[in-house]
Structures are given as structure tokens and as C-alpha cells.
């Protein structure tokens, strides 16, 4: 089971887990990550600025392809029963879910590691861009984080 979706709509983690594991009684472990919109950001020195809305832009076509490649790479590197990657696009507000990565396996090590791998790679390799709109109507593109590049590097073989 491999599911990749780039969508405007929110997702339901319980429903996604039911879809991912279904009636497969060989699954003993499901690891998930959900990323949410924060109302503060860490651009520059300040961690105090309010965010009113967050707009997610992507590269249509490429995004879906890269996410599918990433899911297949995870299936190749770990012993998984299935994987689901959902990333939202469009306009979101603080506390809204942005991304879901969910992996299932017999034992927990494979599920945990592959879930973290997909998130680390997603942060550096998949063409999404966040733009924050502040309460005064001004906006700015979110800067990439140095630590994300480091996190992705550790998976290189």
C-alpha cells in the first residue's frame, strides 16, 4: 500500500490509519508524523512574530512525482507494509495540519526510521514553499533551515 496525495483538503489521521493498515493483521507498528502551522516563526532573530495565514505553493506534477519516488525509496530501504504521504497546499492558518507521513511495519524500528527519513527528505527535496502573511497584511517567504539540510544528509548512503 502506497498513497501519495497533494491536496487542499484536511486529512483525518484515524481514517488514514484505517486505510493504511486495513485488515492486514501482520502490521504490528504504525509510526506517524503530523506537521502543523505554527503562529510564530523563527526567521532571523525573533521567534515572536504572529502569523495570520500560511500559503503553500508547490510545483504541480513534480511534487507528486518526487513524493512517490520518496515513498518507493522508503519501501526499498525498510521492511514496510505500507506508507502514506499527504501534503496540503493553498492557504492554511495556525494549528492547521500541513503534512502527514504514516508508515506501517511488523516491528517498530522500521516504521519509526522510515517515517523520520521521509520527513527529513521531504524538508529538503520536495518542491513546496511556505509564505507567511502577517496580521498587518505584509508577507514573507519562509527561509529554509540549515538544520534541515543536516538532517537529510544523515540518510545518504
Amino acid at each position, binding site marked *: 500500500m502506497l498513497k501519495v496525495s497533494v491536496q487542499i483538503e484536511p486529512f483525518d489521521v484515524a481514517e488514514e490509519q484505517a486505510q493504511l493498515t486495513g485488515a492486514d493483521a501482520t502490521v504490528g507498528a504504525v509510526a506517524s508524523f503530523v506537521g502543523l502551522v505554527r503562529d510564530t516563526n523563527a526567521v532571523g532573530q525573533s521567534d515572536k512574530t504572529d502569523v495570520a495565514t500560511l500559503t503553500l505553493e508547490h*510545483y504541480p506534477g513534480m511534487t507528486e512525482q518526487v513524493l512517490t519516488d520518496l515513498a518507493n525509496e522508503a519501501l526499498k530501504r525498510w521492511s514496510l507494509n505500507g506508507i502514506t504521504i499527504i501534503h496540503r497546499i493553498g492557504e492554511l492558518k495556525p494549528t492547521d495540519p500541513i503534512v502527514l507521513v504514516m508508515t506501517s511495519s511488523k516491528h517498530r524500528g522500521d516504521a519509526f526510521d522510515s517515517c523520520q527519513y521521509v520527513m527529513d527528505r521531504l524538508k529538503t527535496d*520536495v518542491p513546496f514553499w511556505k509564505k507567511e502573511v502577517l496580521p498587518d497584511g505584509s508577507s514573507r*517567504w519562509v527561509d529554509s533551515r540549515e538544520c534541515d539540510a543536516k538532517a537529510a544528509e544523515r540518510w545518504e548512503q
Partner: protein
Amino acid sequence: MIKVYFFARYREELKTAEETFSEQISDTEALLTMLRDRGEPWSRVLDSNVLCAVNQVMTKSLTPLKDGDEVGIFPPVTGG
């Protein structure tokens, strides 16, 4: 013909979402050099962090281009 798409901050600051080139361009470096040679805002906006995808596959280094290729030009990604 080579089709070039710009995304996110680049798209906004260059006021350009896409552009089509009918002339031959040897590779991604040559394309970037050509764009930067236009001067402001191109030379400033297309900084050293620029990323290129050719036919929707991310490139890590100089990549040859041929007729019919699609090139994406964008800043470091910030999804997730």
C-alpha cells in the same frame, strides 16, 4: 524550445512565472548565466542558493539541456 518555470520568491520578485526560449541553451549553468546577465532584478534574485529541476527531477550539478526540456528554477524548499 525550452520551457522555464519560476516558483515562490523567485516568481514574485522576477514577476515571471514562466518563459519559453527558442534558442539553444547548452545546460542549466548557461541558462542561469543568461538570466543573470539581464541585470537587476535577475542578477540579485537568482542568488547562489538557486535550485534547478530538469523535466521535474532535481539536479545537483550542471545538467545538459535539449530541445523540449522543462526547467524549474526555485529557491530552497520549505515544505513539511
